[in-house]
């Protein structure tokens, strides 16, 4: 039972259709508000992209309200984001420069789009040497709207609302592995993950410390240069010598291993849970974020179904015994949805545990889904319009 997919969870109590619609109306209005600018553009493809995303995001939120489940519907959005983001990104790169590789001239002129993954590496050089070790511009320019200030601002605002839930509602990389993790019916490396999970979940912290220290030592964003699995599906320094060829090999190996093969074998988000240093850094935000998952010990029967279902091994027997998750919980809702005894609950800090947990879930979801619609939704809309643009006969 423990190795089964979490889709075997018992159905939660359904909410009435009228009440579900009523709860969805604010989110539908938010989605309309977000994508109104798209309708002011002349392009038909952008109109269709915006419309599809409004319906998609509103529909998923309605299903969350109707079924009382979070994980399944969030995963649909997240996987779509994960797979469509590289598609739209690569299409834009090909259209603009004809290649996925970053030309040296662009790096020298500080025109590289900023990725939030670099953020931890910037801290020490910025603090001690007042230097930003990334070949991007601080303020947006005509050729590079994804500037450092804009991206860090967006990330910071969303982090205040989401905490570590950034990793399951906003990060446009995690969806790829969540998609591969969802494919098999059974997990094959369950015993390995169970045995070594307590150590594996520490690796992102180690990589975070390593990346921060070495980036400060050599004044280069080490994660971008050597360790980012997603370089393989976004953009990467042009291969022009042995060093860049090794870098490219590392990117591809990490992507295939951590984002495709291991998630398929373990049904876990292995890159997020066992590798991503930004995820470890983001975990610190759970200390200040208002929302969390707690366990009602009076209902819990220690079946460990929640522990097995957690995609990033953010639960241990000790933490469940204490009624808490570990710091790296990304609030995906898998444990809450799978719990047959309703012991795992959404919780607003400062309130009693398991008292009106649905209210805490709603409060969290309004914020999280609003951010997901704004950030991920705009990525989805862009990618959908690109697909429509490329479809033959459209």
């Amino acid at each position, binding site marked *: 039972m423990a190795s089964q997919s979490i889709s075997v969870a018992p159905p939660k109590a359904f909410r009435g259709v009228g009440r579900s619609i009523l709860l969805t109306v604010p989110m539908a209005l938010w989605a309309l508000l977000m994508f109104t600018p798209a309708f002011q553009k002349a392009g038909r493809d952008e109109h269709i992209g915006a419309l599809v995303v409004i319906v998609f995001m509103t529909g998923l939120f309605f299903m969350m309200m109707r079924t009382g489940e979070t994980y399944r519907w969030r995963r649909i959005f997240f996987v779509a984001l994960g797979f469509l983001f590289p598609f739209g990104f690569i299409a834009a790169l090909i259209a603009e420069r004809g290649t996925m590789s970053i030309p040296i001239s662009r790096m020298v002129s500080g025109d590289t789009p900023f990725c939030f993954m670099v953020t931890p590496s910037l801290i*020490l050089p910025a603090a*001690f*040497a007042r230097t930003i070790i990334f070949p991007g511009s601080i303020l947006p320019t005509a050729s590079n709207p994804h500037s450092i200030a804009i991206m860090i601002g967006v990330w910071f605002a969303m982090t205040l609302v989401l905490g570590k839930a950034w990793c399951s509602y906003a990060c446009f990389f995690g969806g790829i592995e969540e998609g591969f993790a969802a494919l098999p019916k059974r997990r094959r490396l369950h015993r390995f993950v169970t045995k070594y999970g307590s150590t594996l979940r520490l*690796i992102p912290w*180690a990589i975070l410390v390593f990346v921060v*220290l070495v980036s400060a*030592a050599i004044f280069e964003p080490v994660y971008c240069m050597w360790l980012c699995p997603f370089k393989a599906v976004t953009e990467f320094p042009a291969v022009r010598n042995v060093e860049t060829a090794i870098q490219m090999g590392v990117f591809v190996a990490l992507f295939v291993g951590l984002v495709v093969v291991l998630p398929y074998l373990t049904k876990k988000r292995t890159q997020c849970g066992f590798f991503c240093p930004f995820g470890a850094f983001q975990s610190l935000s759970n200390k200040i974020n208002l929302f969390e998952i707690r366990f009602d010990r009076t209902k819990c029967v220690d079946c460990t179904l929640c522990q097995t279902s957690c995609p990033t091994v953010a639960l241990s027997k000790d933490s469940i015994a204490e009624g808490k998750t570990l710091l790296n919980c990304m609030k995906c809702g898998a444990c809450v949805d799978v719990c047959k005894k309703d012991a795992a609950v959404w919780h607003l800090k400062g309130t009693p545990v398991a008292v009106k947990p649905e209210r805490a879930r709603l409060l969290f979801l309004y914020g999280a889904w609003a951010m997901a619609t704004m950030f991920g939704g705009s990525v989805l809309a862009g990618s959908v319009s690109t697909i429509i643009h490329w479809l033959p006969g459209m």
Partner: protein
Amino acid sequence: MAALSLSASAGEALVLGLATGPVCLATCGPVVVPWMMVQPRGLGLHSRQLLLFLAARLAGYMVFAAAVWMVGSTIPRAWVGRTWLMGGIQLLLAVGLVVYAVGWPHRRCTAARSTSRLVEIGETPRPMMSGALALGFLTGINLCPPFLVAGVRAAELEHLSAALLFFVCFFAGTAVWFLPFLSMGFVQRTPAVVTVARIVAVMLACWYGFSGVSILIERTVYG
């Protein structure tokens, strides 16, 4: 006049050390942080460890100062053996990190442990003073950019004693920047913290090893 010149160069070295200290902090950080994190908690112990580390680092400075003064400023700039030295030091740092932050591989075989030392949870760390000395000396002779600048300047001085004094003052300026490392004495040593520190040490050893081998290969290929 000579005394005035000496005090001026000492002042220059101190200012140079203070100004370039953040670079020293960043260069030595990858060695100091994981090694200190696997030591037991306590400000007193960490103060002693850091003092030993700095003393060994000063010894490394003195060796380098004497060498550059005797051979001349070609060592930091164009000495043919520089790349061998740099590559060798990087490899020694890799070995030093494995030995002092993780432990010799054969220890875990003889100690009949159920799991790898690297992933061992709950082991009480032991203070290792020899690690402070070895790693301090190696970082002391590691040719980082501020160190090379100081080396060029010291080589131009008239007497060996002036070169040594220059490096003592340069060391004093940079040593101030190492004080923040003492804060690690306050960090709680949970099994998770020690395990993370050990994994970081292994990763850094790999990085130093890769860096050292790259330097040596480059030296062999391009001369």
